[in-house]
């Protein structure tokens, strides 16, 4: 990315528009789109040599405390109304299909344990996960398939999506409430029952990878 920007700066025969103008452009594009949009998508629309990332910093500051905010969702950006003004928008409220308790729990487990296999979800809930539950979450585009685990059978994993972050107003999966506390309490570990693979905690490649996956989330 940074390489691309360097190149484009070298290549630009014309000067990029002034930052104030770039800010206006970012504002216009974010305003007009409902879906989050990445920095590179922004730059693809803007004139050559623009620095959308910097323009976003200015724009975000400008909208601080306003009725509309500039928010970061994963690696994309969007404008959203301030949450405290939701009461004004009753007309716009979309009736969201009520999620079952199973679906809500499954979603939470995926969010906090991602990437997580179906078997791991079942282990945590102590009950099998119905197909309908997973389908519903996939349909909402709140979860998607992640990469396969390197364990026998190469089971597929689930992770949460950008739509999930957007829906719950999270900038990042690390911002999930109580995540740090759960982690320090060891409640996000995939601890095998005693007697089954005594050394499992260390040797289990599954475990290794899960730790790896999670650690990415916690990097700052």
């Amino acid at each position, binding site marked *: 990315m940074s390489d691309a920007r360097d190149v484009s700066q070298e290549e630009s025969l014309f000067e990029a528009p002034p930052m104030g103008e770039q800010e206006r452009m970012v504002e216009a594009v974010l305003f007009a789109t*409902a879906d989050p949009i990445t920095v590179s998508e922004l730059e693809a629309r803007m004139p050559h040599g623009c620095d959308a990332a910097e323009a976003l910093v200015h724009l975000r500051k400008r909208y601080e405390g306003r009725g509309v905010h500039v928010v970061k969702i994963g690696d994309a950006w969007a*404008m*959203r109304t301030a949450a405290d003004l*939701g009461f004004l928008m009753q007309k*716009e409220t979309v009736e969201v299909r009520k999620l079952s308790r199973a679906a809500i729990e499954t979603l*939470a487990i995926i969010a906090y344990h991602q990437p997580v296999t179906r078997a791991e979800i079942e282990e945590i809930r102590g009950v099998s996960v119905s197909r309908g539950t997973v389908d519903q979450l996939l349909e909402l585009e709140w979860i998607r398939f992640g990469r396969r685990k390197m364990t026998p059978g190469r089971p597929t994993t689930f992770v949460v999506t950008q739509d999930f972050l957007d829906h719950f107003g999270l900038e990042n999966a690390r911002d999930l409430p109580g995540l740090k506390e759960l982690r320090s309490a060891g409640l996000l570990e995939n601890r095998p029952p005693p007697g089954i693979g005594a050394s499992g905690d260390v040797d289990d490649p599954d475990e290794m990878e899960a730790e790896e996956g999670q650690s990415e989330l916690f990097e700052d």
Partner: protein
Amino acid sequence: MSNDLFEEDTISVTERLAAEALIVDVDGYEGPLDLLLTLGRTQKVDLRQISILQLAKQYLIFVEEAKKLRLELAADYLVMAAWLAFLKSRLLLPPDPTDEGPSGEELAAHLAFQLERLQAMRDCAAKLMARDQLGRDFFARGLTTDVSRVRKVTYTATLLDLMQGYARIRTKDEFRPFVMDRDSVYTMEEALARMRGLMGFAGQWADLVSFLPEGWESDPVKRRSATAATFAASLELVKEGKLEIRQSELFSPIELRTRGGRDE
């Protein structure tokens, strides 16, 4: 957990009643862990201090009651009951030093961990759903039509598409069962007949290629077929003792002459 070992095997009347009340809506439970968690709440203690022994007893009572009421319990409830009965005996009996399996305490600790983890996930789910949500508490831009992507559709087709299309129409009535197309096949019989006629002119070494029939040299498919047939026919004539054949080295031209022809 060690305190459990010395606990009286009795459960208060209220707890018993509570457990029985639970039976009525057994369908309301999301599996045995969920049931255990609910039963655990009657202990009114932090999940970390929960008495697994007591919990196991409550669960077993629950299952007994369900059987009495002829409620059909899902298999996993019964599996859990069997496991808890085993756990209970482990917790009550002094540990057997010859037994290599995990101790009752270890098993109980793991169950406590599972319950705590499930409870934690429940709390997380509740916290998650209590967050401000898009479309409920905060909103995206309501009008996005002016974001339009101008979509211009153009159609394309290549000359090849056009010709194939035409060919398809013009030949669609010409379907016939598959037979080997012989347009481009030059048979050995044909080559042999041709060679017999030409042989007389091959007093000197001549390239095999020069014996190919006219009109078969340019098209590669035809050329290949004609070359193979002519070569085969040549070999046949050599066998008959009418021709001589030679090739100086690999891939060099194959040359023919009538037997007894003079060397150059």
